[in-house]
């Protein structure tokens, strides 16, 4: 499960938090955790909205 994080400086959503270990995953397609997140999305899952 994941939750989107809003950057308070840019006000853009560019990080997603993995709720199982509170890891902050950047939106970088070279990042392995982000690749897994994209696969999770492709399976039809939806992350929690950003605060």
């Amino acid at each position: 499960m994941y939750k989107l994080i809003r950057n308070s400086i840019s006000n853009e959503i560019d990080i997603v938090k993995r709720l199982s270990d509170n890891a902050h995953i950047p939106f970088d397609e070279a990042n392995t955790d982000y690749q897994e997140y994209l696969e999770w999305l492709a399976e039809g899952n939806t992350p929690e909205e950003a605060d």
Partner: protein
Amino acid sequence: MTRAVDLAKRAVITTEDLTNIPSGAKNLIINGDMSIWQRGTSFNVTSTQYTADRWQTQGQTWTGTRSTDVPDDFQYSLDITAGGSSYGTFAQKIEAVNCKHLVGKTVTLSFYAKAVSGQTNCFVVLKVPGTVDNWSSSSNAVNSQNISDIGSTWTRHSFTFTNLPNTVADGLLVQIFHAPDGNTAQRRYTGFQLEVGDTATPFEHRPYDVELARCQRYYELINDNNYSSYGVMAGGTSQGFAGYVDYKITKRATPTITITGSFLIQGNSNQPGTTSMGTNGIGKRAVYISGTGTGSNVTNGFAYNLLDVNGYIKVDAEL
């Protein structure tokens, strides 16, 4: 220098002489000598995870520890004990930028191994990813080789693979495992080397700091012991603070950041604890940390040192 002087005294310099000059770069495997263990030195593996730096389990169940039982000239080995049905698989992924020159080439993998108990066979598989540096969706085997008995004493084994395909430019995985026979198997490995050519040359011992820095391109544990500074934070409004924490080494990709444990910030004659620490921007060289100080001790515009009580920050850009 001694070797250079020795070579200078000879009338004839052979190809082997030149090949054996330590360059620090011939071995494509990082942490082949199992010297770097940033994540700990003992693991109960039940899924895919990293153990010794750069060495990843492949979804099998086994226990792994750092062992001091080693062949000559080494300090540590990886000790694996796999249950009766487990393949005890582990692997290293080599990133694409370090594989471009391997297309069409012959490479040789060598390592030292020792069977302590159980099965003695060993399989070596080379794989390429589905797309550049992306191993999450699919991978394809390039070639595999095996030996029936790695031996009960430390023995160096080598495997040569010819004519690597064009897809090796996307990255390469070196996978090691044994075929289980229902009994527990324990074995130890160290001295992994993958090099261009059809011959296993002597293992290239890189300095510890060089090997650590190479590992930290992929994973860095920022944990400088209790109450050491991670960086300067700026006090803000509503007890907030923020600032950059630098990594020692620029990362392969924008890394995943995990902040664990307790921290405090020290400045303006106060040292409040912290809550709600998180990231507010992640880069390949630094992460922008923000959080909230406890109590009423954070002053807007003042500088604070971020210190750990028992906390640490994991910076993960592994493949």
